[in-house]
């Protein structure tokens, strides 16, 4: 008689299998029950925000690239979006320069100038003239912002200058003869954002990852990648073997 079919060996084998698959069986049963009631439990509404889980699923989270402080408010640049504090702004790009006056905020991107109110409301997107779009000119070190009688002026180091039109819709070329009367606006530099800003961004991040997806993928094994389903298959096989060894013990009683 093969050793496996001896009662003593079968009992040891059965016990070993039981210890091995007990946790898996418990988890598969529990997750199965949860998934059966996913709508009642609103598992799909529970958004996962944990950075390591989002990273595991290769979901890009808001990571601060540049942060500009304006009194109590912040303009934040991430690879995906620009934010006014934690609120996404309806445009994106790399901030080359940021300037504010009493009423407005001017954000210079590579091909447009964005106008916001000083409370963060989007006013207009002004396309940059071709001469301003080149990398060298829009480099903050080659460009200055001035104000003159409530007009805002962009002046390049190459003596070209443009004034924002009164209706904030275009940049109009102007002569630089009167430059002496222009008042220079201070360009706000990027600085390290406080931790709570990063936390605020994460809290407002609309995560596409839900608790239902995590439970489902832990249930079917896909959480662990391609090898996951094979692990679940192996667990199922061990469970079948445990049932068979249990039958063997029962028959020999």
């Amino acid at each position, binding site marked *: 008689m093969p050793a496996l079919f001896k009662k003593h060996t079968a009992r040891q084998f059965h016990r070993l299998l039981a210890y091995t698959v007990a946790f898996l069986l418990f988890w598969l049963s529990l997750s199965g029950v949860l998934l059966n009631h996913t709508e009642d439990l609103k598992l799909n509404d529970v958004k996962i925000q944990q950075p390591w889980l989002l990273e595991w699923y290769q979901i890009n989270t808001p990571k601060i690239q540049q942060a500009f402080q304006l009194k109590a408010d912040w303009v934040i640049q991430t690879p*995906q979006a620009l934010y006014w504090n934690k*609120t*996404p702004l309806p*445009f994106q790009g790399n901030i080359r320069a940021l300037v504010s006056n009493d*009423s407005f905020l001017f954000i210079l991107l590579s091909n447009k100038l964005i106008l916001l109110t000083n409370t963060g409301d989007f006013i*207009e997107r002004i396309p940059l003239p071709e001469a301003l779009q080149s990398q060298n000119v829009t480099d903050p070190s080659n460009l200055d912002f001035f104000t003159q009688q409530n007009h805002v002026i962009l002046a390049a180091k190459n003596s070209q200058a443009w004034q924002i039109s009164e209706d904030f819709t275009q940049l109009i070329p102007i002569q630089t003869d009167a430059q002496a009367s222009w008042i220079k606006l201070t360009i706000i530099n990027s600085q390290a954002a406080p931790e709570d800003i990063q936390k605020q961004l994460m809290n407002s991040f*609309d995560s596409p990852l839900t608790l239902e997806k995590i439970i489902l993928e832990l249930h079917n094994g896909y959480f662990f990648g391609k090898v996951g389903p094979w692990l679940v298959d192996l667990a199922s096989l061990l469970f079948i073997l445990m049932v068979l060894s249990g039958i063997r013990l029962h028959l020999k009683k």
Partner: protein
Amino acid sequence: MMNKIKLSVYLFVTTLSLLSVESQASSVSEEVTRFIQNNLADNAKRNFMWLTGDKKQVSSQILHHPYYKIRAPYWQAKNANRSRSAKTLWVMEEIGKEKLITIGVVIEQQKIQAVRILKFRESRGWEVELPSFTKQFEGSQLDDSKQLNQSVDGISGATLSVRAVTNIARLALYLQTTLPNP
């Protein structure tokens, strides 16, 4: 004046996708120019309606979120009396599903005279561009609950685009009522 503007924070968190949208540049596009020429005199003048205070609140109720800009452009003939009953052309943008739809609305005597889709950027729901759809808005007015007084038939597969166009039509009618009435 701008210092007095009380503005609440945008609630666009659920529409992060909007961030990838590049709407028309602020200079007037060819489609808009043609629409203005077809509906107003060549010398139409552009003005801006600032959506602050009550206007911001009501427009948020109509769209179910604040309009994405703090001002909306409108055109009137230069020689018009510039009252709320004068013929006015509004060009506004609203997200259908993922991208902005540029919508032109012509209003005269508080009634919609024409609705046109000036730029459709979505991959689905283009049927809202068809004249058979936009004609339904002609003659519509705003009732007391700020709804259109004429029903607009939905389009299967274009529900969100239909909703966007309808809401912009309602918003344009509402903003028209806020124009000065000398």
